[in-house]
Structure formats: C-alpha cells, structure tokens
C-alpha cells in the first residue's frame, strides 16, 4: 500500500530535502509512525508530547481536512495523497495561481466610482482572480508552504 505524502518546506530538512515521500500506512496515526522510521525526528515535529497532531499543523487526505474526517484515526487506502501544511500558511490544501486581472468591479457598491477606475484620487483597485487547483496529481506541483 503506497501513500504519497507532501512535506512542507520547514520539515524537508528531515526528509533529506524531499518534498514528497512515500510510505505504507492504514491510518494517519500509522503514517506518522511509519514516516518517523524512515525519517527519524519527523514524529516529534508533527505530534506533541502526547502523540497528538500539533494544533497548528493541518493534515489533508486527498484535499479533505482530517478535522472533517476522523482526525488521526482517518483511514488511508492505496494511492491516497496526504498533505501536511502549517496552519500559518493559510492551512488549506489548495495551490492557486493568483492572477492580477483588471476586471470590472464585481461589487455593485462600487458603482459610484463608475465603470473605470481612473478617478482623480488615483486610488488603485485591483481585482484579483484566484484560480484554485485542488488536484495535485494533475498539477504535479507542491503546495507553497511558508518558509
């Protein structure tokens, strides 16, 4: 049973600079133990002294937050993808391309400013469109975690 695990930048020192590692495990709890065997010290970073997943580390199984599943009892199956992401990085398994597009304001409240934002004040309003990619396998890109 092989599970792909995405490791955030700050923990890659322990995984010999790998951002993705593979392991075998039946649950998240298992997975942590298994990772610690291959990469000693990893468990201490992922779990606190009581063996609980650290509060400011979010874990996703195929993009679903384990807080919505069975926490560390969440079961895993062959081919699952697990992402470990510090909460401070915004904590969601979403990579996105943020394109700064100059669109018309989507908010009717802004109509007083007219269609174009030239305005003498020179205030800039930049409408940002976020394109979300939740599919890692297709994207093949690592989620940007905070350094």
């Amino acid at each position, binding site marked *: 049973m092989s599970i792909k695990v995405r490791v955030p930048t700050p923990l890659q020192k322990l995984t010999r600079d790998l951002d993705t590692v593979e392991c075998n495990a039946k649950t998240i709890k298992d997975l942590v133990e298994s990772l610690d065997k291959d990469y000693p010290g990893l468990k201490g970073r992922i779990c606190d002294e009581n063996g609980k997943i650290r509060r400011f580390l979010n874990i996703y199984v195929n993009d679903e937050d384990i807080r*919505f599943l069975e926490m560390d009892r969440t079961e895993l199956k062959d081919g699952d993808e697990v992402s470990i992401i510090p*909460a401070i990085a915004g904590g969601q398994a979403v990579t996105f391309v943020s394109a700064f597009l100059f669109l018309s304001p989507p*908010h009717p*409240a802004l109509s007083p400013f007219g269609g174009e934002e030239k305005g003498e004040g020179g205030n*800039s309003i930049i*409408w940002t469109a976020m394109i979300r990619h939740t599919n890692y396998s297709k994207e093949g890109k690592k989620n940007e975690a905070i350094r």
Partner: protein
Amino acid sequence: MSFVKGLKCRECGRHYPKEVLYVCEYCFGPLEVVYDYEKIKETLTKEAVESRPRNMWRYRELLPIDGKPTDGLNSGFTPFVEAKNLAKALGVKELYIKDDSVDHPTLSFKDRVVAVALSKAKEFGFNTVACASTGNLANSVASQAAAARLKSYIFIPADLEMGKVIGTLIYKPTLIAVEGNYDEVNRLCSQVAAKYKWAFVNINIRPYYAEGSKTYGYEILEQFGWKAPRHIVVPCAGGSLITKIWKAIKEFKEVGLIDTYKTKIYAAQANGCAPIVCAIKENSDIIKPVKPNTIAKSLAIGNPADGFYAASTVRESGGWAESVTDEEIVDAIKLLAQTEGIFTETAGGVTLGAAKNLIESGRIPKDESIVVCITGNGLKTQEAVIDKIGNPIKIKPTLSSFEEKVGK
C-alpha cells in the same frame, strides 16, 4: 525604554528574540510577546496611568514597543457607558457598553491594534505596511499609514460593504479586492508576505499587533473603577480580541492594578460563521473551519487563527458562547440605537444579540455587572439595516402638508 523580554511560542514555549517573527520554527505555533512584569510594576501605578493623556498609550509599559509611540496618539480611551435604558429593556441590573464605535480615527477597535503595529513596523524599519482584512482593519491601516507617511497594501474580500470600501479608498492605499472570502484572502496574503518585504500587520508582525487589543480590556478595568466586571461579552472573528481582553485582566492582576477578578468571558458570533461558538458548545478542542454566510462581514472568518485560544479563554474563565441569526443582529443594532443612542455595525449587533440570548437563557445572571463590547460603527454597514428602519415622512414645505402627514 522597553519592558519586552522577547517572544515565546504559545504551544511549545520555545523562546525567540523580539524580531519580525510570528511562527515557531519547531511546532508552527504562534508567538507571543513576553514582558518583564516586575519592572513594569515599578512604574505602572494607578496614579501614573491617571496622570497620563487619555489615549491607549497610557498603558505603554504593557505594549510591545521599544521607543516612543508614534501612531494612534488619539486612539483609545473610548466611552464606557452605563447603559441604563438597555439594562431595563433586558431586565438586568448593571450593564455597560464599552463603545469603540467612536474610536479615533476610523471608528473601530482596530485603531488600537494598528497603532501598535505601525509604531512597531517603524521600529523594525519598514516603509510599507499591509493587511488582510474583513473591513475595519482595512480602514485603520489605510488611515494610519496615510498619517504616518507609509505606503500601504490592503487586501479585502471583494464583497465588502460600501462604507468599508470607501472608508479605505479615501486614504489612497493600494486596495486589492480579492474574489474570495476572508480565509482565501488571508491565504493569499501569507504567500505575498513570504515574498515581499512588507509589514503585514496581522501576519508577520502579528505578535506585536495583537497586543494592541489589550488596551480595550485595560480601559474596561480602569473605567469600571480599577475593578473587573463579572461578565464580558466579546465578538469573535479571528479570536484575537477575546484572547487579549482575558490577557489584559490577568496582566492587571499580575502588576497589581486590580486585586482580584471573577470575570467570565463570552464569545459572540453569527450563526452563519460560528466556528468558535461551535467548538465551545461541543466542548471540542478542534476548531472546524466553516464557509461564512452572514451579514456580519467583519466577523466572517471561517478559519480563525486564534480560534483555539478564544475557546480556551471562554472555558478557563467559566463563560459560554452564543451565536445569532442575521435577523437577531439587525434587531440588536436597532435595540442599541433606540435605547442608548449608539449606532453600531453588524459586529455590535452580534455581540448584543448574543448577550441578550445569554441573559434570557440564564447563562448570564441578571443581577451582576455585564459589559457588552461594541467594537465598530453602524455608518459603515448601512446595507444591513437600510430596508428595516422605515423611511422619512415626505411633506411639502407648508404647515398644512405637515399637519396632514404628521400632525394628529
């Protein structure tokens, strides 16, 4: 003169120097400012505080700057109103409004956190400040950055109320309206913060910024007569304010400015975004993120950064939590206006609505002192009430028209 010892991880206790740091390298927990309370005790006496100007910097020893404060010199020391009419309406004996709907300069309690953040950002040598905001923070960063001659980049969800948008643009920041909710804005900002050398007030200098909220708590204690009230109801978005009010109470006890406290803290959120209230009611350690859907946009944070600590605060103090419907929010806004003459924004409606429910359900006893935290101004969220307050009576400029339409 600094009373700050350094930073410390709230989770694992590791110590860090007082630099631009905000997350523990080891366990990813948030960092918090640590003070030298023994030294603070020597200068921060009641007499000293009372002799100082009436603004938030009168508690300067307990704020995380090294030099002189440079921003928000007129922020804080807002009215502490004994709300007799509202008390009567709710059937309680002793009720107070801590009224930050008139905080200077942008009419919300965020002026306090921004005052500290900008003073600190300058000490760190930044010339650009930024924030991710649900609206009030946007107003305050834009305003105070303009006064401080700093550049500012403000990120907001694109669907904010007009008052919040105009109240930001007027100061000429770079305003970025992101198509997404606050949690998405915040996530984007973490990435921007990692790349650009800006002081993101609520990201990379968050440990310092958040300390500003304590002054709201200090003022409650001073204005209540250097005592702690029994019950405080606090609105929660990211969960920072409620945590810092609790810290303020503990610190005042620590430095001897109050003798004791038996204060219970209550969290208020909207039904459409109540991750903290849910965790408290379910007695759970886990904050489950939600997708916000409420008219209380200033409180619409579905994945609250300090949610765990907010819930712990409530639990530790023996308080409770309540959420309210959008309709209850509007009713509470109207109730506060029509009893005390104070027009609050949706966040204030949430707080008063929750307080009302907590009193009615018996969670808050009717014969003990209660403080309701009003943290923002109603003129900024007019959309919430515009269809629910009637219309002016239109008449011709003649006495007969007046008597026909108005007179009896």
